[in-house]
């Protein structure tokens, strides 16, 4: 199975290793991520204004590229996933946006939301299957108590993202079980870490991260994993060293026994 892959800015630059982990794990699990040629940054946040078109075009380009290849589009970063999935929904359901975006794009055939947008975790859950993943784990993270940190973008708005129950998700917990560790469920796992606000309102973000980490440690977590590079940055920056935060692909690669391989590259 081959997927169109949208890596996004952070995983392509600051966090390249996380991207490598994802690709090499995919290979081991029997699917391939084919990077979209000349992808452009999704913009990081979904423009809520219904009259904004230009800021949605980068996503439309990526989506159309996947459509032309007849592939589903996979993202790794929660933010990219959020933006692209919502723009896709607009292209499918909002006449005005679809018409205007297509007018700009001048494609061979108008793009009307045909591409299916998947998060890497969804591929693991729905295509590979967590049971199957579990069988392929060579280096289970037995004994580790891991808190899943979802943040906002993966889950909300629940109706549009249709990813998991937005108030009581379980996909990352299932993932944690599949790689042999024990999930720790804590109530702040879908509360905001502060997002982009950490740039100018560091204290606000710090307070939010503190609540998240306190809740997670309180319920017994000894590490957190997340699917969003910005969440990872905020949590890492604000928590000191007592509760390490990992990107899920890193633990995936580790469980599949591939982490060293990447390091050596």
């Amino acid at each position, binding site marked *: 199975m081959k997927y169109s892959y949208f890596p996004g800015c952070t995983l392509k630059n600051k966090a390249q290793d996380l991207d490598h982990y994802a690709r090499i794990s995919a290979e081991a699990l029997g699917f391939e991520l084919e990077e979209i040629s000349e992808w452009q940054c999704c913009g990081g946040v979904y423009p809520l204004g219904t009259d904004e078109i230009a800021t949605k075009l980068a996503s439309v380009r990526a989506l159309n590229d996947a459509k032309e290849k007849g592939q589903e589009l996979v993202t790794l970063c929660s933010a990219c996933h959020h933006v692209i999935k919502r723009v896709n929904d607009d292209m499918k359901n909002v006449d005005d946006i679809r018409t205007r975006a297509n007018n700009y794009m001048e494609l061979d055939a108008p793009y009307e939301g045909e591409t299916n947008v998947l998060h890497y975790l969804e591929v693991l859950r729905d295509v590979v299957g967590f049971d199957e993943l579990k069988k392929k784990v060579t280096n289970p993270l037995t004994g580790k108590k891991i808190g899943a940190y979802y943040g906002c973008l993966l889950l909300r708005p629940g109706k549009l993202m249709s990813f998991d129950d937005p108030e*009581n998700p379980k996909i990352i917990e299932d993932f944690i079980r599949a790689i042999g560790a024990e999930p720790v469920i804590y109530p702040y796992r879908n509360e905001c870490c502060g997002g982009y606000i950490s740039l100018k309102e560091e204290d606000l973000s710090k307070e939010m991260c503190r609540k998240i980490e306190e809740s997670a440690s309180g319920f017994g977590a000894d590490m957190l994993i997340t699917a969003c590079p910005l969440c990872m940055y905020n949590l890492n920056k604000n928590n000191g060293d007592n509760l390490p935060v990992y990107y899920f692909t890193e633990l995936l690669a580790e469980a599949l026994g591939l982490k060293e391989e990447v390091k050596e590259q």
Partner: protein
Amino acid sequence: MQRIGVFVCHCGTNIAATVDVKKVTEMALHEPGVVHAEDYQYMCSEAGQELIHKAIKEKHLTGLVVCSCSPRMHETTFRNAAEKAGLNPYMVEIANIREHCSWIHKDIEEATEKAVILMRAAIAKVNLDAPLKPGESKVTKRALVIGGGIAGIQTALDIAEAGYPVDIVEKTPSIGGRMSQLDKTFPTLDCSSCILTPKMGEVNAHPNVNIYTYSEVESVAGFVGDFTVEIRKKARSVDMDKCTGCGVCQEKCPSKKTPSEFNRGLDTRSAIYTPFAQAVPNVPVIDRDACIKFKTGKCGVCSKVCQAGAIDYDQVDEIITEKYGAIVVATGFDMIKLDKYDEYAYSQSKDVITSLELERIMNAAGPTGGHLERLSDGKAPKEMVFIQCVGSRCADERGKSYCSKVCCMYTAKHAMLIRDKYPDVNVTVFYIDVRTPGKNFDEFYRRAVEEYGVNYIKGQVGKVIPQPDGKLLVQGADLLDNKQILKEADMVVLAAAIEPNPDVRKIATMLTASIDTNNFLTEAHAKLRPVESPTAGIFLSGVCQGPKDIPETVSQAGAAAVKAIGLLAKDKLLTNPCTAHSDELMCNGCSQCANVCPYGAISYEDKEVNDHGVREVRRLAVVNDALCQGCGACTVTCPSGAMDLQGFSNRQILAEVDAICR
């Protein structure tokens, strides 16, 4: 040629403010067949009807057009008026210039123009009207009540008291319904079972009442006065005649792990069970999905311990077919599932419960023996938080658009009972509005605040956050104080929205009774016929029609009973004369019409006809007027157009089309 009179109603200003009634009246006189036209303030009034009477007599009218409100409102009124003046009532047509015109248009010129066109269409139709005579049909003097909660019980008792036999069909093993699960009732705080149990006994013992518990309606055929209903009596696996209700079987049953429906899954029951101690009938059923005997073939303990030899593993479902003249729906409600509201952590913490679960916890026969305690650790709570409107008043698909109506009052009741019994427990209620219309209701709520010190906070809760130490952190808003609050609680109670029993959709379909977008049964008129379904012979009792509390339910149950009694008291009903009719000379006898007739009203016979001198025996469709309900499905199926519908004939509808498109 008809002699038609046109009567234009002002309906006060309801019509006259937007439609130039004088102009409409004047335009009427230009239409073919119209010999009289006049307008009046209120056509439906005595004086208005008198005008009609006079005109019919003086101008020898053969047909009437009344331009007024919807025919669903006053068609019968004007037909009766016509009949009184010696005119066949089916020579009356209504032009609906109120609901379909004056009320929805603002521009006078536009509305007047449309009113004239609607009038023309009605005139065109009257021109082709023919006098019709209704037939008669019999009334089976027996009523069926679907649902054995307080609504069904009260309706059945009232009908039975009037001397008519009545059957109750109840899906669960016992009658009693939701009310039997309640601990106390507002606004008097009397014990629910103390007032319900005697009624259950009374209805059970009434000679005119026959109760089918653990039974469901399987199919409904027929129409008002003459319904044929199939009832599936599910296999109880216990002989109702032999069982003495001693209860030993339930005690000895080794399968005790099934969540108790009665206690909302807070504890478990045995595989052979009566839902609760006061169950009527006091005869257990075997839950075959849970029973070891049915699952593995080995066990049979209940059979061994039963002194009366009442256990019968070989029982099968039984279908009972019965005729009824009237059917009352009293299917009640359930609480919505809370899986879409997990911000309140209902599925994450045992100490977040629904109000109905709290009723069971507070009840002496409940899972905790009536002690208020946390289900997680059995500890007594010190801080209780109630959250109102969970799933009610929602504009999105997560919840219900309506107000569930009973939550404000029962929450005040819960708060008061807790403060009364456990004065050291603090109670906080997060509310959006406190709604207390009802006799002694607001006084009741104020007592909760003033005498019992319940802390009411205006604002909704955003999230319930379980803490590592087992406490619950409630993050809410206090809109009056403009603050975000974090409140620690030991238990959180959710006032979940109520919704009609999910089975009602299936039942409504069987009854062809209409249902609204929320699955509440629709009443024939919101104000004037609130307990009748638009489908004749079907009556509504209790929450199946809309949210209501016990006193309202009981009142409506009585009202539904009276309507049913009114029907059963008649010996004959007049049938709708707008039935299908087949033209013998055109009929091909092809049987297509019989294929689509939902009532089996069409049969075929070989008949000699004289077709312009040619005498031959032909196979012809014959419509049974008593069975035909006048839908018209056959008329369109018939390729030759031999089949036509009286009162809505092909030519009449085409004439209306022509008049509108003129």
